[in-house]
Structures are given as C-alpha cells and as structure tokens.
C-alpha cells in the first residue's frame, strides 16, 4: 500500500506502517484481560474506547473482539508474545494487517470532516479523545479512533481503500468547510 496523502482543509494520509490483529475472545474474562495486558503492556480498553502505550493500540470492537494495532517493526514480537500469553485459552487471533487500510486525518476541523461521512455525533463531549467507534463512511463500514483533538485515525477494509481515500479527499476540499 502506498502512503498517499492529500492536503485539503484537513490533511488526509494513508498509514501503511501499522500491523493489525483481531482477537476474538471474551473480553469480560479477567484471564483474557490479564493475558493481553501482559503481552502488550497496554491498559485494557473499556467499551467504546482505545488505549495506547508505546505505539501499541488496543481498540474495543465489540464485547468479544479486540483490535490490536502496532507498528510493523514491533509486530512479530508482539504476536509471539500474545500467542504465548493466550495459550490454552479459547480465543481466535488473526493477522488482519493486509485486510485493512488505515488513514489519518489531521487538522483543526477533523471532527466536521468525519461528520460529513459518518452518521455519528462527533461533538467533543460525545466523542472525546480516546474514543473508538465502528460506523460507516458513506457507503462502507469502518472504524474511527479519536487520537487527539486534531487527529483522527480511520480504518476500513482493504478492498475499498481507494473509495475511502477519495471520499475523504472529496470531503476536505478547500471551500467546503462547514465551520460550526
């Protein structure tokens, strides 16, 4: 994947330097929580949230699904550690790095750009920094992580990455500011 970018009134950039793993497991289980925490060193995220530490991100996808994101360089080590920590537990851990595409929106107006494409309340009180949500961007499913007040990560499926990139480039076209 190429790290394409577009400078509109918000900057759009593809970030292919991340590996992603899907963990299907009972997230309410203390054993699972402990295993994930020990292998990643990241606090276990509560419902609707992300936790980040040392470049590793844990995102709450559903009551039994966790998304683990880590820079490619750290991926193999993390995977080995996770597999060891989860040994013997009823889980399914799959590498989905190639199945997903990640984009980063940055700029002062990231929230309203999200508001053009996702039917979600992007107000800071409703979607504070650290929040994670699965929704749709126009016609495709995706996930959004509010990393910083002016930085949002977007995750979508690989097959529609061109659509999603074009979608956000279109939404950040200069002159189309909503300016709430």
């Amino acid at each position, binding site marked *: *994947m190429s790290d394409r970018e577009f400078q509109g009134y918000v900057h759009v950039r593809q970030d292919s330097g991340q590996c992603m793993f*899907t963990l*299907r*497991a009972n997230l309410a289980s203390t054993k699972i929580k402990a295993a994930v925490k020990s292998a990643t060193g990241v606090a276990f995220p509560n419902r609707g949230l992300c936790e980040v530490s040392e470049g590793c991100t844990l995102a709450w996808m559903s009551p*039994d699904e966790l998304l683990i994101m880590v820079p490619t360089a750290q991926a193999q080590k993390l995977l080995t550690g996770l597999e060891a920590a989860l040994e013997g537990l*009823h*889980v*399914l851990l*799959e*590498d*989905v*790095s*190639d*199945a*997903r595409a990640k984009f980063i929106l940055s700029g002062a107006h990231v929230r*309203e750009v999200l*508001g*053009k*494409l*996702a*039917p*979600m*309340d*992007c*107000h800071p009180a*409703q979607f504070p920094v650290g929040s994670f949500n699965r929704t749709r961007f*126009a*016609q*495709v499913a995706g996930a959004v992580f509010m990393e910083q007040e002016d930085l949002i990560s977007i995750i979508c*499926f*690989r*097959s*529609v990455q*061109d*659509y*999603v990139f*074009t*979608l956000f480039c*279109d*939404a950040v*076209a*200069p*002159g*189309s500011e*909503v300016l*709430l």
Partner: protein
Amino acid sequence: MSTRLASHGRLINRAHAVTFTFNGRVMNGFEGDTLAASLLANDQMLMGRSFKYHRPRGVVASGGEEPNALINLGVEGHFEPNARATTTETFNGLTAASQNHFPTLEFDVAAINSKVARFLPAGFYYKMFIHPRSFWKHVYEPIIRKSAGLGKAPKARDADKYEHFYHFCEVMVVGGGIAGLQAAKTAAATGVRVLLVEQTAHWGGRAPVDGVRIEGMPAEEWIAATLADLAVRNNVVIRNRTQGSGVYDHGYALAYERISDHTPGDGRPRHRLWRVRCKQIVTATGAIERPLSFAGNDIPGVMLAAAVRDYVVNFGVSPGDRTVVVTNNDDAYRTALTLKQAGLEVPVILDARAEGGGILMAEALAAGIRVELGRGIAQVLGGKRVTGVQICAQAGEGSVLEEIACDVVAMSGGWSPVVHLWSHCGGKLIWDLDQAMFRPDPNQPPLGADGAGFVRVVGLANGHLRSAAALADAAAQGAAAAKAAGGKAKKTAVAKGEDAEELPLAPVWLMPQGASYKLRSKAWLDFQNDVKVSDVQLAAQEGFESVEHAKRYTTLGMATDQGKLSNINGLAILSKALNVDIPDVGTTTFRPPYTPISMASLAGEARGELFQPIRKTPMHDWHDSHGADWEPVAGWRRTYAYLQPGESVHQAVQREVINTREKLGLLDASTLGKIVVKGPDAGKFLDMMYTNMMSNLKPGRCRYGLMCSENGFLFDDGVVARIDEQTWLCHTTSGGADRIHAHMEEWLQTEWWDWNVWVVNITEQLAQVGVVGPNARKLLEKLGGMDVSAETLPFMAWADGEIGGFACRAYRISFSGELSYEIAVPANRGLEFWEMLMEAGAEFGVMPYGTECLHIMRAEKGFIMIGDETDGTVIPQDLGLNWAISKKKDDFLGKRAQQRSFMDNPDRWQLVGLETLDGSELEDGAYAIAVGTNANGQTNTEGRVTSTYHSPTMGRGIAMGLVHNGPARMGEVLSFTKIGAAPVKAKIVSQVFYDPEGEKPNV
C-alpha cells in the same frame, strides 16, 4: 409599470449593482435582490406561463410559496429548471429564461388552450384519453409527454459539488424570524446544543417589514442584538440560506443549505444537506398569505398584499403606480399605508367586511385613502398586465358598481400558518374558527422514540399573528423544548413585542360570494396547475368527496409549489360544495420536502467516482493494465476476460479456455470468501452449517461443502480446509463472503450462544491465485520451495510453505477439471506474487484467465455455480448432490425442511446436461416445452436452462438445466424456447462433458 424606487430597500446594497440576463435581455439589479425583485425593477412583471392553459403569469408572492415565477436558471452544467425567482438571489452574470411557452413568453401559441378552457375541465385527461384504447400509445401519450413539465430537463452533467453533513443537537429551531430567534435564545440559555436555520439570506422574517417594535426598539435592532447574542454562544449553530425541509421519525430532520447558489463558481459546494438528529424540534416557520378567489386573479399584477409590501420595503421596488388593495382583514391595510408612504397611489381599499377594520383602517383613512366596505372585485381587467378592476358588492353576484384603473391588485385573504414540518411526521391540526386557519393541535404532536411529542410550533406558525403573543409563545416553548431535551431550566426574559391592534378577519372563500359560473371559471385557486373554483366544484359534483381524491382529480396543489397558496382556499370551496364544515373535509397530507430541493443534494458525495464503492483485489490495477474486461461481482470488479489487441471478448474467452486446458492459466481468486472458524465446538458448529460432515475432516485435508438455508434451499458452496484440531477455514462464493460470515455470527449469537466458537472473516487478508493447467506443477517446481508433488500434496489436500520466496498456503483443489493449485499469500504481496508467476510461467505458456473462462471450464465439468444452478428454489438433491448431504447427522440447517413431502420426493426438476442436436447454444433461461397449457393458457414447461456456453473444448454448445425427472430421461430430446425463433431441440445427457473419470486434476 413596475420600477425601482429611489427610497426604501432595506435588503439591497445600492452601492453594488449587478448585471444579469432574462430571456437574453441584459438587466440590472442590486446585491441583495431576489431575482423577482430585480425583474420587477426592470418592469418585467410577466415571468412565465401556466401549465395547462399557458396563461401569462406574473409574480404573485415574495417567498417560497411562489407558484408563478418559475424560471430556467443558469446554463449547461449549472442549469436548473423551475427555480423560483422569489427565492433566487440575484448575482452578477445570472442567466435566467422563462419557461413553458412557444415561441416566446410574450406570444405563446398554446395560450389557445385558455380559449378552449371549457373543453378542458377538471378530470379532462381521465375522461378524454381512454377512448379509443389504441390511441393512447401512439397519439395521446406522445402529445402529453411533449406538453408535460414546466422547465427544461438539464442536458449537461451537473458541474457542482454537493455534500451531506450529519449534525447532532438537542434542539433544532427552524425559522429565523423573531419567534425562531426568541425560541433559540431561550433554549440556548439552558446550555443545550441548538441549531437555528433560516431559509432566506436574512434574519427576522416579516417583523421589520410590518413595523413591529420589540423591547421598545424597531424589530431590526432587536433582531441584530439577538443574533449577536446567539452567535457568541458556543452551544449554538446558526445558518441562514438553510431550509428546514423535512421532519422524520425519531428526531431526524433534513436541512437544505444553499451555500453558493448566489456565488456560483467560488469553489464552495452548491448545496449541503444537513442530516440532523435532535431531541426536540421547534418550528417557527411563519405563515403564508392566502389569495382571494375572484375572476381574473391570475392576471399579472395581481399579487399578495404582503408581497407588494415586501418588494417596496425590502427591495425598493414598486410593483406599479396604482395599486388597488382588496382584503378581508386588517393586515393588508399596512400595504396601502406603505405604498402611500412610498409616494405611490392607492385608489381604493376594498374591504370585504361590512364593518371594516380597526386602527389600521383609521390610519388609512387619515392618510386620505378611499376605503370601501363590503366591497370586492367582480373581475380584474387586463391581459398580460392588470389595467383595472370592476368593483362589486361582496354579498352579491358580481354586478359591476364601478371600474377603477390600476396596474396592481394587492389581495389578502388572511393567513395560513406553515404547519408543514409539524405535519410531516404525523402532527395533527385543528381548525381555528376565529382566525379561519388550520393550526397545530398541541394535544396531537408527532411522537418520538420515547412516545412523547418532539415537535413544537411557535409564533405565527402556531396561529399567533400578533408579535407580543408570538414572542411569548416562542419563549415558553423554546424553554420547554430545551427542558424536554435535557437542558437545565433557566429563566430568561421574554422580549415584548408591539404592533397595531387588529380586528378579526371575515372568511372570504369566493368573491363575490354569489359569483356566477362565468366568474367562478375565471377565479383561480392553483395558479401553476390552472385549477379554478369551478373545477373544484365540478369535482365535488362528480362525486370526488374526499379531499385527497378531489386533489388528484383536479390536480389542485399538485404543482411544484404543492399548493401553498391554493390548498386552504380549495378545500374551503370543496367544503361549501359538499355542504360540510372545513375541518370535516380535512387537509391533504403534507409531505417533505417543504419546497423542492435539488436531487444532487440528496445524492451528496455519491456521484461519479464515489457513486458506488468498488471493491478491488490486490491485483486489480494489473488486470486493468492487461486488457481486463470487467464484470461486477458482489461489489468487486473481476476480470471477465483479458483482451489481447484485436480480440473480441468472445475470442478472448475461447483462447483462455484452450490455453488453460492445454498449458497454464492464472486466476485471481482473491474475492473468494475465507472464514476462519475456531473453538472446541467448531466441528459441531460446522456440521450444523454444512449439509455434509465437516467435524471428521482430517487436518491437512479439504472437502467441498454445501450450505442450505433453514428452508432447505442451497445458498452457498465452497471448499473447507481443516487447519488444526480446533480450526477450520471455510471458503465461500465471492458474493457469499459477507453474507455467510454474518449467517455464522447470527446462529452463534442468537441460537447457540453457549457454543465455544469464534469466527473471523479473513477474505481480504489474502490474495489467492489459481494456478491451473497441465503445466501448473512445473511452474511451481521451477519457482521452488515447498513440495507440491502428488505424493506430498495430493488432490484435496493443503499445506503451508513457501513458493518462490513467498510464504503461502497451497490448496490442491480444482474447479476447472485440470491439475490445479490455489495459492494464498498475504494481500500486500499479492501483486508481486502474481507478477512472479506470470514471468516464470512464460516458458510454460501462462496466460491469465477471467471469470467467463472459469465458468465455461466448470460447466464442461458439470460443476454447479451458486446463482446459476441455484436461484433460491433449488435444493441440493435437485442437483444430484445427495453425496454431499450427510445421512449420519441428526441435524443441520435445512435438514428438517428437506424432509417435507414435496422436497423429499424425486418428482422434481433435476439437473442434467443438455446438448443441442445442431450444436448451437441454448438460450440462458430457455424453457423446455411440455404438452398442453396451464390454467392461464400458457404453454406448459418441464425444465429450464441454468447454464449455457459455447465450449471451445467440445467445439459445440453445452448446457446444464433442470428437467422434470431429468436424470431418468437420459437420451430424450426436448424442445427449448428461443426468443423470436423456432424452438431448439436438445438431448438430455450427463452434465459432465469433460474428463468424466476425473483423471486430469488428480495427477
């Protein structure tokens, strides 16, 4: 003559003149004008022609309710028909043209329709065009189509940008008049998020025009101060040029922002559709003045009284030198006073009320204006412009008492609250007898998700015609809305409004009340669709008693203005004709949007490249640059065939089949669904999902499996590989990946939630390549890595390893009947892997092949394809797949269904091969013709073709089909339908045309 005044014009900037064209004529206007104001300033009262009679029509209103002044706006990619001149802001370079006339606006040959109006009564179309039947298609329809529609359809692609915006708030206030401002201010004070929208470019609504004072200051000052107060609050979003267009369930509302209609080409989107979710909606949408129904009320120059006032006060435009005011209420006196004050003549005010009005009448008399009480208009004189009026007694039948010359008639029949948004989602109305209007019934609001009302109507729209009451209402309801939406109660002061006391109006539905047929047939109700008082009366006489029926029969209110001026007058006429009260007739249904909004705004970003997401495999771009002829498959684009220079699609497909059978082909199979199923109960689960047994599959091995719905019908198939003790990988069809993944999740979540099974869809994680053909193994061995020999990797086995340096998983499976490997690599490396295979395969004659080649090869082998051999009514037993249905299992999805008498029965249409006697191809979907006819007189059938191709391998047409008791009828010859030709004879044969022993893949 209409012209620009030297005085007045609060909304225009005289320092900034603009130039525009109307029907090619260059005209001048000012920044801040509406197009209607600019046209009037250029003495262009005639703005269009009516729909049915092509009558000359001038502007009648000053806002969104305008029925007449519709224009073709813009050119080429910026062209839009039926734009209202009253809501179009004039800008430099604007191009406008009038519509619905031939050859010119001034002279229209179709105006003859008006002369034959008595032959074109209500329901004319229904009565006329049904006889003779044969005339419809060739005579009537073409003529009606040609005369239908007002504006021209755009020819060029829309050049502008449009977008959506999802907005969430607690309280949405629609309407930026004084009531809307007050409601927003009160709600905002509680701290909740407030969205305030106003459809025009200006705030304050009618109050500044009507001379309202608030808090002791002119309304304009209070409006500016309130707006400034709202603007600094960070919990308030305010937008002008944004119409609250529709209210829907659960607090969903649409607002239509016209961002750059008035500044085209400045790089901004043209429209933005706000998709609002809120807890409470306050509509402060004002009221619309009603016309009066008198003969000739459609002649250009007859206008609503408040509109006349608007043009003078807001735009400094005089609609004419001499204006006769005709009214049934006090408000219209303001127009007379305004005109007089602007130095224009008001020869007479005709007040239909015998007792006349109050303070405002006294002011008019004091200003020296003649006032006639109990009088009305018998008939307006003039053709393309008003030249005078004939006065009569309102109580009489229209005997002319006097003729007065004038060039404008300002009429007022009272006010109708704009209750549209209240009604969109089910709010009910009550008839206010005193004010002769429908207003919202506060006891029957539209209900939200919590079962409580979520829309409130305030101000004029709630029937409060006086500013003090309107402001008090707005403040109270703004606070109540905020409280209902979770705001903290906070006391805020209510602005005090002052305006002149008014006496009640007297309802006047026809002028004069006893008007003769001749007058009634010239008294217009619906100006755009040409519906007159006499038409509605005829509808009632002919039995159309329901208002909804009468509407459709007469087309009253069915024009682009949706009857904003005509509805109440029309149903009052109907109620009188039926001799029932107005509320018993009821209203027609108000539906969103409030005024027409652009189709492009509804599409938003979904046009051109973004019209539909296209799913691409990792090798998509390679295919594209190697002659791919694309085929849409479940959102993906797959290559149908790779065209070489000079080849037709058919030739390419035939070449690909032959090359793959004889040498080596590559297939991009990445779209196939790949679902990992894992857990202690995974085997048990898959035994439920598939008709065959999956729990006893050995690790390292593959098995073809079938999936049925609970109704027994086959709906997906694919190869399942057992990975380890607790893990299986299920391949699905390309179209089935998401569906089957969801299907598995559904059963795990909702039926067997105590089973320990996890499922992950890894379809897009892997690029999968089919390496197919007699040279397949040679290629893989050349690249080196894992052992792909028949001994180590036999047919229907899989193994992990490395090929040419790529970590991969290789499956020995074949859908083509050839020696075949399917090799999965991480998607990010898919393209590299593909290119390596292409390069290394050159010496073995490698060629990529597409989906049609795949289809032909599988048909030659008699393999079924989901969607060809199945259509949701076919069970596996119909396809000879009994071998894949486990008899050992107690249960699987579809098992119980297949035990039903009509499924557990050989007397069905079953799969066979078909060979035409002449070698031609059967038509896809062709039916086998049986003896006799059915109850409908149709020829009986006994089978149909499900797949049919020209097989290059066989050198002839081959087909598969479902035939009644087919397998038992081998060798029989059937006749198959062929569209437009004689039936084709075909013999029933085995569906396995190629390599019936299955030796080729198993080497």
